[in-house]
């Protein structure tokens, strides 16, 4: 399958994967999750990664985010080749330059919402930028809930805390792994709206894995994965166009 995409023109590249492969197991029983993928994520844009179950979309996200290591290939975050970094350097890189939103369990149950938002900054032993954090909190609509613990927040509120956390340290890039997977449609819309706002108004770079065409429609660009390869991409998608394309992939 030949890629019909052009991965060049943009203001700049936030993260780039070259010939990325991920294999699980050895020998003939080995499962190839990702097969020599070349990918480039542009700065200041909202990119969605889509694909059917087992297409390797989460694996790709984990590799780009430095949560997992590729079997072969390189990943460049800016100018830094991260697949060869030691655990400590990689951890510090995640802490200082990458933000995360997971599908669930984003928050430490013992910490308040405010403390959770400041978590990566506090881990780094730095003082949070009060003004920036307040702006984030207001934007995600959590003012007044800051002293609540996760158990006292709804699922949607929890994910918004997670989003604020991801942005709090002004990371180079934010990775979101099915952030709306456990939310109802209204909460999903709130969260995705906030993510798009972060890209449009704050110039944040966001990469999101999702299987929901509606969620993908918030992105500027959608990458489609199937069987461990990028098979196509779409710019300025709508929910319908993505849904139709997904149907064609599934068929």
């Amino acid at each position, binding site marked *: 399958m030949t890629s019909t995409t052009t991965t060049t023109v943009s203001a700049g590249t936030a993260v780039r994967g070259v010939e990325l492969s991920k294999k699980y197991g050895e020998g003939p029983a080995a499962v190839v999750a990702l097969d020599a993928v070349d990918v480039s994520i542009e700065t200041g844009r909202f990119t969605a990664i889509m694909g059917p179950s087992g297409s390797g979309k989460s694996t790709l996200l984990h590799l780009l985010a430095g949560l997992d290591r590729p079997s072969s290939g390189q990943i460049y975050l800016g100018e830094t080749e991260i697949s060869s970094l030691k655990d400590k350097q990689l951890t510090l890189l995640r802490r200082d330059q990458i933000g*995360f939103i997971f599908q669930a369990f984003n928050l430490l149950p013992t910490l308040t919402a405010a403390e959770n938002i400041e978590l990566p900054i506090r*881990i780094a*032993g730095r003082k949070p930028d009060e003004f920036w954090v307040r702006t984030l909190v207001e934007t995600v609509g959590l003012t007044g809930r800051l002293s609540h613990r996760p158990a006292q927040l709804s699922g949607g509120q929890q994910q918004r805390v997670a989003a604020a956390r991801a942005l709090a340290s002004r990371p180079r890039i934010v990775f979101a792994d099915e952030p709306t997977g456990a939310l109802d449609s209204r909460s999903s819309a709130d969260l995705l709206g906030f993510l798009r706002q972060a890209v449009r108004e704050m110039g944040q770079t966001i990469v999101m894995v999702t299987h929901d065409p509606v969620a993908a429609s918030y992105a500027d660009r959608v990458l489609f994965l199937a069987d461990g390869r990028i098979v196509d991409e779409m710019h300025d998608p709508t929910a319908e166009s993505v849904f139709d394309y997904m149907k064609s992939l599934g068929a």
Partner: protein
Amino acid sequence: MLTASLRGMLTHRLRLVLTTVSIALGVAFLAGTLMLTDTMKLAFNQLFGKVTAGTDAVVRQEAAYSQTSGVAPARRPIEASVLDRVRKVEGVAAAEGSVSGYALLTDTAGRAVLAEGGAPTMGYSMPSDEALRGDVHVRTGRAPTGPSEVAIDATSADKGDIALGSTIKIMFSGPAREFTVVGTVGYGDETDLGGTTAAHFDTATAQQVLGAPGVFNEIQVRGADGVDDVVLAERLSAVVPDGVEAVTGATVAKEASDSITKNFMFLNIMFGVFAGISLFVGSFIIWNTFTMIVTQRAREIALLRSIGATRRQVRRSLLLEATVLGVAASVLGIGLGAGVATGLTALMGALGLSLPSTSLQVQPRTVWLSLVVGVAVTVAAAFVPARRAMKVLPIEALRDATPGARTPSKRRAAIGAVIAALGLAAILNGLYGDGGTTLVPIGILTVMIGVITLAPLAARPLASAIGAPLRWRGFPGELARQNAMRNPRRTASTAAALMIGLALVVTMGVFGSSLKASFGTILGESTNAELFLTPASAQGAGFSSEVSKIVADVPGVSVVSPTSWGTARIGGAATTYSSVDPATIESALNLEMIAGSASRLGSDGVLVSDEKATEKGWTVGDTVQMEFPTSGTQSLRISGVFAGSGFLNGSYVISRATHEANDPARLDANALVLVDKGASVGDVQDRIAAALAGHPDAQVLDRAGYEKQVGGMVNQVMAFVTVMLLLAVVIALLGIVNTLALSVFERTRELGLLRAVGMTRGQVRTMVRWESVVISLIGALVGAGLGTGFGVALSQSLKGDGITEVAVPGGQITFYVIAAALAGVLAAVGPARSAARVDVLRAVVTD
């Protein structure tokens, strides 16, 4: 259900291992103690059986009553004329008088050959009839004959490097004498008699140096072939005078063995107590483990319930799990017990308490008792968590239940507070009320139980306060503090185990230092003596009365006042008495006489403490009936009432002459020395030391030296007790490892999240480590606090027994607390490592 239980156990191997070990250690202590007891009993039986092997019957004075201490009860000597009567009895093949008494060997350089701790230094007559010697046999050289020959036990010969043919000095309660060593003696296969040093003389010499001419301690009889021992003893009984008895050799051997076993009884009790403490501490770990099992398995249990398992089945399956664990731990413990027994023997050996060796005895009783106790403790500790498991509802299978921390109830607070208050009331009543001092230890135990009950309520605020300085350790420190606060019950029961251990250790520490401080004060306040004569070693029985005579002649010495002590019965109750020299005691010791005078003691007087006098309504001139083990009941006239207790033992003081009359084996226990006005104490001490060069049974010490010697003895005992208690602390630390390991397992996702958002492995390790330190410190600080209080209360309660000072060893307690914190760091090593290794992806990916 059974397979489900067993599978569950095997899934968490570390938990299984830690829980098993924590119970196994307690069981090991119990099994080890029992093995040691049985081994000791057998060894002494064998030993004394061998010694009396050739003696079929013994003729001796009836004892007024049998003392609990000493190898043989002290008896009055028997007239030599009885021997002639005995020899004429039909069936007697041989009969000889035997004599024994205090004898301290010195080596060729004049140094004392000291007995292994606890054992006496003895002299014996050696029968000329070889069969009567039993298994006491000459190993090298020959048997002693004549007034200047001695054979000594092979151990002493070896230890003192005393060659055959050398001349050595031997100390007696009377004047010392020189002897030529003509032989070494063995006892069966042993080279000494349970640590005793022995000098063997011919009978006539023994009479001169150990007893008195014309009398024996007893008469040993060998029966003719075919004469039954019992029959022989009966025939002998018929001819001996009133007050003299005849018993079989076997009876004597058994008495000797029983008596020495009784001496070691305190060790058995002590070890038993330590085993109990260890098991109690271990039960907290079991409790913790099963609580965590139930919480983690809530879903699994709910699933079982929803597919039709009854509550009973759920409980049964957990208790079954506890039983399997208990059996496994007990079996392991019994195995380890052999090691414990060996270790304890070595430990006692290091402290100078050597035991005769024989193969380690594992009686069936040891096995079943250890099994029963181990399983019972395990099942009992698992019972409450199992009840909780019963209450898991089937619906919980469907809930996404995160193991939550239940807030401790108000009822618990009330119950705990009441128990603690009752305990405190008991302590206060024991100290200041009229409840008697036995209330104090009971109160201490009650307070402990109250505090354990309250612990879950206090855990959160304590963790918060103790963890407060962790803010300066950065964010991982702050998280550590919060983690320690999250599950107060778990933190509490983990810390409680350490708390108990440390409370006991600190109690002993405070008690020990109070003991030492009190001795210093007693010395300072009750005597103006500058120098003290004491036995050469802390374990020495005493020294010859000759010593005081020698010292009295040293220039610069103004007064030498020897004192001693013994036991007697008054009104049927065993009591300790002191004996003093009436002529000098009041110039050396402030007895704080309320009535009468010590100088009027004479040979039939007694001084009683004002406490006893008030209790019994005695006044000067009244008569007290004292029953001595050797001489029976004597009527003594009260010649004074004293208030100054402390330096002297007990509530009764008699004269040296009275003591000697009723206990021929008396030795001086110590002597107070006053120097002439203007004389240099140091010079006089040097001169006394020089004068005593030939008397290594005694030494001269100044006040500081004496305090140091007594302090050293206290330290030794305290060290021994502390080492035992540290076992409980070790078990408590295993509990911390267990709790941390389980917490790390429970928090896998959190750890993964923290790692994902940028916490380094080092920071994760720091976090777990500090959580461990917080838990340890909760246990250590509360334990140290309680222990200090308990130690003070205990010391106060023994005021009447001479503990007049209360001293809190601040440095020592601080050391324990710091050590506990460091131990917390150590306990966290494994869990911290596994926390740092958590796979980030597995934690954050929703499956």
